[in-house]
């Protein structure tokens, strides 16, 4: 360009130099020196795990507790709005599980020439409910981030809120179901003893385990969209690897131990033993198998295993989720 300017002209703020019309970036930069690549970047040292946990729980979840509630309310409202089933939906899934289980047990009883006891049906009803909770919460939790992409990419809030509210919405459904089961169980010949109080800590363990899983899977599904299909298949067949239809001792002494490796098994079996068998979960329980041998149906170590699995999964889930949270908007 023919018209060049001196540095002095540029400093006079009210003078318009002609280079503005040409807008040559290299010239019109003025005060800013532009580098072609950034200076060497040192990644921020990560805060200690405890510090991160405090940040997540205190600064994020507590601050956004009302959002969590609103999102859970949204999920619940949508589920019951314009729905033919209404609140019956809450007990449909556990009822189907019990019906399927009754069928399986009847076939097994027929083959062995025995009868199906009503308490076995009660035990299944008690175990079907937490299983339905787990399946429902994981299903919604896995999709909680991808199903709210508009929010994830556009508005800031702690993303933990999404799997958490999905799990809480499922808590509402399962509470309705639990009330129904609590009413039905006495009619199946089961009376409540003090050991039924074990329900409370077991439900807490179940919630922690489920939330931890929902966090991990929700996060994984955001990065890899095929995760939800894998989860669907695993949940569909998971019931055969979890003691819902049957009890672990049906598999013999060794089989029972293998069955109890499933971290959900101590929770489900604990619920059944505490409510139906009036068993104190701090005591071991030995039952006699079909061949007359002794089978260890319960030990307090199972309880410890369930607690540890839930705590590890929840803490791991929260920390891993938090670690990847900052990149969600880019991958979504």
């Amino acid at each position, binding site marked *: 360009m*023919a*018209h060049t300017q001196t540095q002095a*002209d540029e400093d006079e*703020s*009210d*003078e*318009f*130099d*002609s280079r*503005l*019309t*040409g*807008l040559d*970036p290299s010239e*019109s*930069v*003025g*005060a*800013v020196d*532009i*580098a072609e*690549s*950034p*200076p*060497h*970047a040192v*990644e921020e040292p990560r805060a200690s795990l405890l510090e991160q946990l405090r940040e997540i729980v205190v600064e994020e979840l507590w601050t*956004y507790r*009302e*959002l969590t*509630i*609103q*999102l859970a*309310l*949204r999920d619940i*409202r*949508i589920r019951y*709005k*314009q729905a033919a089933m209404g609140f019956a939906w809450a007990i449909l899934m556990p009822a189907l599980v019990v019906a399927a289980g009754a069928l399986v047990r009847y076939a097994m009883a027929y083959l062995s020439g025995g009868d199906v006891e009503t308490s076995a049906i009660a035990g299944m009803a008690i175990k079907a409910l937490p299983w339905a909770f787990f399946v429902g919460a994981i299903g919604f939790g896995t999709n909680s981030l991808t199903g709210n992409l*508009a*929010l994830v*990419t*556009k*508005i*800031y*809030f702690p993303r933990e809120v999404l799997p958490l509210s999905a799990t809480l919405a499922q808590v509402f459904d399962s509470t309705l179901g639990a009330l129904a089961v609590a009413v039905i169980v006495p009619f199946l010949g089961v009376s409540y003893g003090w050991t039924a109080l074990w329900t409370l800590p077991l439900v807490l363990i179940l919630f922690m385990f489920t939330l931890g899983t929902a966090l991990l899977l929700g996060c994984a599904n955001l*990065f*890899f*969209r*095929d*995760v939800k299909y894998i989860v669907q298949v695993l949940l569909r067949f998971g019931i055969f690897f979890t003691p819902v239809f049957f009890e672990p001792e049906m598999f013999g002494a060794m089989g029972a131990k293998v069955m109890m490796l499933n971290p959900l098994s101590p929770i489900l079996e604990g619920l059944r033993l505490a409510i139906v068998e009036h068993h104190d979960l701090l005591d071991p329980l030995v039952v006699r198998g079909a061949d007359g041998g002794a089978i260890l149906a319960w030990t307090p170590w199972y309880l410890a295993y369930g607690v540890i699995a839930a705590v590890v999964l929840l803490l791991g889930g929260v920390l891993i989720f938090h670690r990847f949270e*900052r990149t969600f*908007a*880019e*991958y979504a």
Partner: protein
Amino acid sequence: MTRAPIEFRQVWKKFHRGELHDSLRDLIPEATRRLLRGRPPLEQLERDEFWALRDVSFQVTPGEALGIIGPNGAGKTTILKLLTKILRPTVGECSVRGRVGALIEVAAGFHPDLTGRENVFLQGAIMGMRQAEIEAKFDQIVDFSGIPQFIDTQVKRYSSGMNARLGFAIAAHLDPDVLLIDEVLAVGDYNFQRKAFGRIEEMARRNIPVVIVSHQLERIAALCTKAILLDAGRVVKRGEPADCIAAYIAGQEVSTTENEGADAELARTVRLDSSRAILSGDRVRLRVAGTVDGLRPDEVADRQIMFTVRELQGGNVLFQTGTQRNDIEFPPSGPFEIALSLQMNVPAGMYGIDTTVWDGHRMKTSFQGPSLTIQVKESIPFRGSVQLNPELRIEAGSPVSSAESAADAGDLAEG
């Protein structure tokens, strides 16, 4: 050292172009490669990566409003996403202090199956409002949206305008420490837009830092105290909104005028004698300085210096004048300076004044001189395309002579 509530320090942001590994199958080779070679350093670009922001720095203090302008893909929205903490900088530092109010995607949290009422609480919570706060402001929000009769209707039955109005109404009742605005100024119909803009102005005047991204340049000019112009992730200009807008528009225009015979006459600079931002009806004064050389006397007779006033947005030519039309001869060889004064009887907005040298013999522009941008601010409210400096008063002897009308007349005289 106290830091500004909004601060961007040498921020670089890296993005991937195209697809990332979207299924587990693609992850495994990638992860193996990373294990073998180690993570690439942050400041280095991998294949398919690019810098969406390069070395962007700015700060906004309370009372300041920063306008961010630039073509699509320049990085404006990325800056806002960094400010709202949705994204984090690859390199550099981005800090925002206090509660962020973002007039961005104001209806993003709406669920179609919920009613307007339910959605107000949901969207409010998403924007970080407390339940009690929403309850307290609920009537104001509904009132502002202008759709109280539909508040218990499911949002899926709303028109898109109603949707946006309700969303904006919620966002407009945030009480933020920092305000971020992204292209929400085009919400609803004409009346609602005016109302919304008034609300934004009101929020921006609360002595809080404001950042605005918009393609509505006259809004930037009206609201902002400073601006940056982005291009391909770089800040190419910073300063007065009017300067940045001028530079932006000049950069956007495809230069069709070749400066043929540019060696003959050079209008070098335009100096503004009056303020860059004037009131409608006031005069803008400027001086053009340059040099004429290499023109034969017969050529000089055909040349004239032209001044063209146009609306920046839309580019309509409003007015043109020149040396010949004012019976002024084209300056002889050597340096010259021409003074021009224009009474800007135009509505509020951004205007460009171009200088050109017109070759009357060949009927074409022989030289494209510099341009400048001025901002005209509203002096009196009016409708129309020209400002006719109205003088209005009620003369004595009007049939209604109550105390009220006398007071009105007094108001008019003061105004």
